[in-house]
């Protein structure tokens, strides 16, 4: 079988991605189109690895006014890495709309198979199709599928494996010459698909030649933002009108449509409540509450399990390899490094499970409808809700989710403020500090500790909104912002598709964040285990302690603490202590602060070591130990309320995640923004913490 590359094209909400999942299963991966931040998911057919399938972004048309459209147009027109054919996926209940994009792809001379998807829904609603008419009008094979049940997908696969595709009938023949095309780019592409005289539908081989003739110059000019808006718009609208005229004729011949559909009726019944000016918001709030409850309670068990597994593993490695460098590297550097990444997977997976359910069912577009006005006040878009919500699991997939926001200014602002949302990594820090410093009393019938945690979440949200409002003043944009989208009918999501989505997001997190955290964990281990003359100093100290006849474990812990103090990172920590003293931190806390600038969760582990808790720590032991720490000079508790609150505020606001900075750099394609983020958020954290310490101290 020869290698072939097939594109999957179609409208959003047409079940295209479900078809893609069924064609490729786990043999898929997500990446980027070169030079642009647009998702490219590709995979190979099960049992036929020679056939590569690329899921192009869902579109309504190919007029290149948005990035997605421009990228797909470029992909179809390029002469390198050509697509051999396309599988066009149409929603059976909206065939007239589906034919628009189809007609443009057909006019580009791309061989195709036409798939009419979501047949179950359509048939139940009363849609009837004249297959023969459809086939003769389009000139390509027509396959009916229902991605939910999988019906028809096998026929699609067998047709694809024939590797023999038909050129579709043209909708509009072209009037062009080679010279025209190369000179005028965009205008000419439009006119090449335009013919005032609706005549034959003969096959259209010449078009492929023209497209090839575009060459790299012509292709680039297609992608340039049109200089003369109104002229281009006029051409587009004229072409659009003509296409629709022809398409409506075809659709009338080919489809028998019912007056109303059952899906619409059900959808309207639900939307009466879900978009209600009062109940809509209450329901949304309730759903959010349930989601977070579920995430907290369900992720606890897997996280504890992982914790236990990794510390046991660490123990085993230690006893096997002893105290040699390799043994310690693995037990104290590598294993904590890996576990530090993996431990967040349950929370991240659960949040994306819920977000995936909300999107696939169609409810997310209702959320955008409800939230858009409020978001606009802060310079954001209704669609910003998804990244902001995702940021509560992890900012990395959240920042990537900003790609759905078309307006560059709104997208940039959303990217910049998303890291303020309370992510999973901050939770271990919050948990320890609250347990140590906040009394577990009842206030108005609610636990004070729980209230403080909730307050921190609110702080994250306010910081994001406030930050967005400020950025709104400074970031300039000329592009008009639109919010025009379809609210699809409600559908029951398909489990497999949701699971694939979660798997893909988790993979992104583990790869993007994971590799950076892993490397940093090893680097930190090194900096914390080595120092100038460290071994000699430690040996001397150990001898001194032994002479005092201290119990072995206490001795070990104290030696460990001493080692950390005198390691490279300890030296730096002590050196920067003056900087942090106004915030209420001593040099031990400063060390922990420094180490967690790479990744927040490292804070707890570092504290455990510094306070001589040893490796075998649990939340209780840390809490007890920290509670008992006192300042030798003032006699005050080290982790008093003021210091703890100051630390909490610091962690809430500071940018302490190199992985996030890396992703922001990638999505904004510049170093300016991540650097600004780092400086501004950290400054905010510093002064915020200072203010709190001063107020409570």
């Amino acid at each position, binding site marked *: 079988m020869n290698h072939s590359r097939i594109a999957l094209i179609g409208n959003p909400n047409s079940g295209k991605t479900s078809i893609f999942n069924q064609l490729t299963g786990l043999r898929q991966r997500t990446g980027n189109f070169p030079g642009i931040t647009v998702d490219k998911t590709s995979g190979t057919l099960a049992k036929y690895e020679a056939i590569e399938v690329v899921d192009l972004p869902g579109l309504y048309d190919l007029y290149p006014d948005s990035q997605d459209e421009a990228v797909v147009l470029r992909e179809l027109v390029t002469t390198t890495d050509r697509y051999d054919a396309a599988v066009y996926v149409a929603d059976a209940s*909206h065939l007239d709309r589906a034919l628009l994009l189809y007609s443009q792809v057909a006019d580009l001379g791309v061989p195709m198979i036409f798939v009419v998807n979501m047949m179950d829904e359509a048939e139940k609603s009363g849609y009837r199709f004249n297959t023969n008419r459809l086939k003769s009008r389009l000139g390509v094979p027509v396959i009916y599928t229902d991605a939910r049940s999988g019906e028809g997908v096998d026929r699609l696969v067998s047709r694809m494996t024939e590797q023999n595709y038909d050129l579709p009938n043209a909708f509009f023949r072209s009037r062009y010459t080679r010279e025209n095309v190369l000179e005028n780019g965009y205008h000419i592409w439009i006119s090449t698909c335009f013919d005032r005289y609706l005549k034959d539908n003969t096959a259209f081989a010449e078009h492929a030649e023209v497209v090839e003739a575009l060459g790299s110059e012509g292709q680039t000019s297609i992608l340039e933002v049109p200089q003369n808006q109104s002229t281009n718009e006029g051409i587009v609208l004229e072409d659009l009108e003509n296409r629709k005229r022809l398409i409506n004729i075809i659709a009338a011949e080919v489809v028998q449509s019912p007056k109303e559909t059952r899906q619409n009726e059900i959808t309207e019944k639900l*939307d009466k409540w879900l978009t209600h000016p009062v109940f809509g918001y209450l329901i949304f709030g309730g759903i959010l509450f349930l989601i977070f409850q579920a995430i907290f309670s369900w992720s606890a068990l897997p996280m504890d399990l992982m914790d236990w597994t990794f510390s046991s593993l660490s123990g085993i490695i230690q006893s096997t390899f002893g105290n040699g460098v390799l043994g310690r590297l693995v037990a104290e550097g590598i294993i904590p490094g890996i576990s530090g990444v993996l431990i967040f997977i349950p929370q991240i997976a659960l949040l994306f499970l819920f977000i995936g359910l909300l999107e696939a069912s169609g409810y997310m577009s209702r959320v955008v409808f409800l939230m*858009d006005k409020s978001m606009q006040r802060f310079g954001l878009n209704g669609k910003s809700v998804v990244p902001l919500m995702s940021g509560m699991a992890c900012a990395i997939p959240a920042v990537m989710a900003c790609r759905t926001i078309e307006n560059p200014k709104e997208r940039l602002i959303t990217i910049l403020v998303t890291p303020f949302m309370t992510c999973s990594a901050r939770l271990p820090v919050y948990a320890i500090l609250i347990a140590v410093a906040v009394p577990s009393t009842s206030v108005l019938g609610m636990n004070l500790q729980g209230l403080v945690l909730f307050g921190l979440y609110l702080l994250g949200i306010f910081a994001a909104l406030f930050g967005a409002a400020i950025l709104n003043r400074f970031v300039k944009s000329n592009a008009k912002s639109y*919010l025009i989208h*379809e*609210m699809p009918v409600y559908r029951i999501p398909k489990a497999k598709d949701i699971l694939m989505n979660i798997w893909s997001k988790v993979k992104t997190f583990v790869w993007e964040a994971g590799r950076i955290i892993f490397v940093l964990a090893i680097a930190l281990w090194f900096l914390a285990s080595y120092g100038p003359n460290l071994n000699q100093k430690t040996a001397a100290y150990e001898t001194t302690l032994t002479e005092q006849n201290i119990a072995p474990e206490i001795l070990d812990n104290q030696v460990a603490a001493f080692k950390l103090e005198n390691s490279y990172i300890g030296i730096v920590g002590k050196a920067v202590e003056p900087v942090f003293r106004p915030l209420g931190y001593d040099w031990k806390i400063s060390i922990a602060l420094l180490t967690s600038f790479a990744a927040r969760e490292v804070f707890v582990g570092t504290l455990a070591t510094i306070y001589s808790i040893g490796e075998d720590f649990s939340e209780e032991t840390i809490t007890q130990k920290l509670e008992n720490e006192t300042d030798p000079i003032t006699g005050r508790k080290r982790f008093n309320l003021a210091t703890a609150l100051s630390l909490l505020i610091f962690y809430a606001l500071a940018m302490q995640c190199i992985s996030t900075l890396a992703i922001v750099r990638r999505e904004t394609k510049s170093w300016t923004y991540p650097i600004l983020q780092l400086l501004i958020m950290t400054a905010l954290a510093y002064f915020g913490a200072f203010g709190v310490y001063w107020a409570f101290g």
Partner: protein
Amino acid sequence: MPSNEFFTQDSLATRYSSLATNMKLSDLKKGEKATIMRIRDGELTKQLMTLGLDFSAPVEMKYKAPFGGPVCIKNNKKFIVIRSSEAQEIAIASL
């Protein structure tokens, strides 16, 4: 006539008479129906057309978000959401 004003009705008579229309889509109350006559913004027109709006069929105002938020219209068996600022650019003739 402004260059990218889009007229949805073909006949010249309807086109010119529609210039007299003052009602905007944003004026429509929930449940009311109307015909779209004119759209002032070319990009808005293109997006509505490619979403599958059928100008020969009536448009029903389905839901309006509070405090000047987006509106949801129904046309051609589809539910389309647009901002109220965008709905202001659409001239209608009520039914």
